[in-house]
């Protein structure tokens, strides 16, 4: 059965139940698990306990429905990126330590599909320097079930068999572009902690 109502369900849960937990991210550096730090660049709102894996952070400026930045640090073999509301654990796409960048792109697409996005296209997979490590980047385009067009980007690196990933998604009109420059600077600020991921 479809999972595509999860975006709506998730947003309602965030709106109704988790308001008290939302906090501002005003630190000069933020820890992403034990894996790396970033400079947030601007003031974000953090939504703890969102649909990301336990060691992920979910930030937004304009609202999670319109734009979200997910930071994953040290995703281990067998761990899922996103854990959508109501998903059955055995059907969640998971990271494997032997994945290459091509496989990670597939993992992100499958994870977004399970999260409810439709018509997902990943393009421009390319090598990139991420925090001084060999990493990767790619671009995303997709739609919500209500046919709202979204844009996105992913940047990350597999370090010591663990996946570190920045995933940024926003509406194609306005909200992706609104914080894109800050996200690019944030990616440029990634600093892996000593010992790698």
């Amino acid at each position, binding site marked *: 059965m*479809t999972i595509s109502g999860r975006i709506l369900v998730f947003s309602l849960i965030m709106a109704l139940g988790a308001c008290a937990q939302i906090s501002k991210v005003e630190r000069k550096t933020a820890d992403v698990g034990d894996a790396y730090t970033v400079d947030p660049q601007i003031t974000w709102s953090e939504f703890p306990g969102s649909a990301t894996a336990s060691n992920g952070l979910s930030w937004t400026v304009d609202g999670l429905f319109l734009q979200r930045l997910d930071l994953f640090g040290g995703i281990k073999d067998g761990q899922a990126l996103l854990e959508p509301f109501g998903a059955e654990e055995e059907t969640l796409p998971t990271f494997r330590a032997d994945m290459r960048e091509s496989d990670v792109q597939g993992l992100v697409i499958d994870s977004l599909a399970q999260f409810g996005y439709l*018509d997902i296209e990943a393009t421009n997979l390319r090598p990139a320097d991420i925090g001084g490590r060999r990493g990767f980047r790619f671009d995303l385009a997709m739609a919500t*079930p209500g046919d709202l067009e979204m844009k996105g980007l992913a940047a990350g690196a597999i370090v010591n068999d663990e996946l570190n990933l920045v995933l940024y998604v926003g509406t194609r009109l306005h909200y992706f572009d609104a914080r894109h420059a800050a996200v690019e600077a944030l990616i440029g600020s990634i600093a892996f902690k000593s010992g790698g991921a």
Partner: protein
Amino acid sequence: MERIEGVYGSSAARLKDPALEGYVKDVVCRLSAAYCDDLRVYVLQQPYFNAAMWPNGMVAVWTGLLLRADNEAQLAFVLGHEMGHYIRRHSLQRMMEIRQQGDLLAFVNLALAGAGLGMAGNLTSAYVIANLMAFNRDQEREADGIGVKFTMKAGYDPREGAELWRLVKAEEEALEREQPSIFGATHPGIDERIATIETRATEVGVADSEPNHERERYQSAIGNHRADWLRAELRKREFAGSQIVLEQLLAGNPNSGELHFFQGELYRLAEEEGYREQAIAAYRKAIGLGGAPPAVHRELGLLYWDEGQDEEAGQALEAYLAADPKATDRLMIESYILQLNKQVSS
């Protein structure tokens, strides 16, 4: 209902292919010219077996059904069954019952769930709502009987409906599902349905006629979309069930390079013991047969690399870039080839 139809129409889940929707509508009209003008078809991109016909005439057909059907007769049977509910106003009766219970919101959510929208986005809540909307067994038997008559009258073999149900049953057994499929959640048991369909078909004398299946017409109508639907099928990560679906498709199209590619994809993603060898064999077969997407070379190359066959890996990745000169992952693949060449020469 108008609001719900508006959501169907504008949803990203709607497969925006007028030709395919026109084809399904044509099958509806073949089944009954009298209702042809009243019914509006929406093909929804949902990788599960389901179809519904609503009291206002909107017909929702999920791509998971279209992927599983082998021929037009099978699609026609499902549409004929739904037409039975429509003509007998079963869903209208159920809607009125729900409304009397003051639970219209549940009905709206059910309809939205049919498009993969609304609060019933996940499997569990879909079952809950499907059960809310469940027709009773008498209504189902009545719809089955009407479905047999419609398919027979239009010249199709109604026993193909039973064939489709056998596939769904095999899939559910492979998945060891405690609950039936979405479509099945509101229907009698599968064995009972198969028996009913075959009994009714015999009663109307199908064995003495020469019904057609319109297989070629059907395969031609869905052919352009099958790869996308298979990708969506694999994204469900219900690999045991998808294997049953793929076996059925391969039985009907044994020389399809595209299907052998997806068989390789299933092996690769399911990661069962020995999957690399199985996937490599499937990819090689797909390449030999032709018709597989260019990605078959990339996946083959990456598996060769995993297996330490660096030279073959490099050749396969080169073949990928040659087969897809505009590959959007060209820069990454070129970096892989560079690494492989270094490994080979060292």
